[in-house]
């Protein structure tokens, strides 16, 4: 049984560009959450999707947007990239009442 799959694993982008990260949740999970983790820090909550709707959002600017598809997979889009957006982006899937399963993450470097 596959866990959470994220793609790509690594990405290098230039300031001002746009990026799309993808996530396939664990089988049976219907909720997807996205986190940003800077080096040496805890994961910071970006937003959560359930039934194709953004259910919760953290303190991130509108440059960060997302989508959830009918098969529960999800995308994270970041526009107008800044150097400070360089981080590990983690996708986590869950089913209500249970712990989160994290993917291995996408390492984004903005130059």
């Amino acid at each position, binding site marked *: 049984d596959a866990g959470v799959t994220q793609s790509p694993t690594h990405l290098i982008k230039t300031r001002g560009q746009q990026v799309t990260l993808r996530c396939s949740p664990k089988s049976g999970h219907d909720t997807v*959450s996205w*986190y940003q983790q800077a080096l040496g*820090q*805890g*994961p*910071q*909550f970006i937003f*959560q999707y359930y039934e194709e709707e953004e*259910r*919760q959002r*953290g*303190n991130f600017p509108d440059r960060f947007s997302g989508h959830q598809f009918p098969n529960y997979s999800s995308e994270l889009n970041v526009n107008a990239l800044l150097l400070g957006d360089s981080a590990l982006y*983690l996708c*986590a899937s869950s089913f209500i009442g*249970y*712990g*989160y*399963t*994290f*993917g*291995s*993450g996408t390492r984004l470097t903005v130059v």
Partner: protein
Amino acid sequence: GQQVMQIPQYQHVQEGEDFTTYCNSSTTLSNIQWYKQRPGGHPVFLIQLVKSGEVKKQKRLTFQFGEAKKNSSLHITATQTTDVGTYFCAGIGNQGGKLIFGQGTELSVKP
């Protein structure tokens, strides 16, 4: 907004010594979860606590949830080199929704 704080930030122990990390929330939590992240890895779910005063054990690991549901602790007895990593607590507030992570406690174990 909801904040989760963890102490200490770092803990260096000799193999065989005990280890404890503490977690405090600014608001009452509906549940608290603990995760372990190995160096270069992603967070892995360890356990979830939902009841006031709850204590759960997993082999050498003991987890507690405070009576007021605002604090928690993780205690490892007789640490081993395989315990190395960063331990995160993460809580969901009473209004539900987003899982907020603490900053983590990085554990190193000297053989």
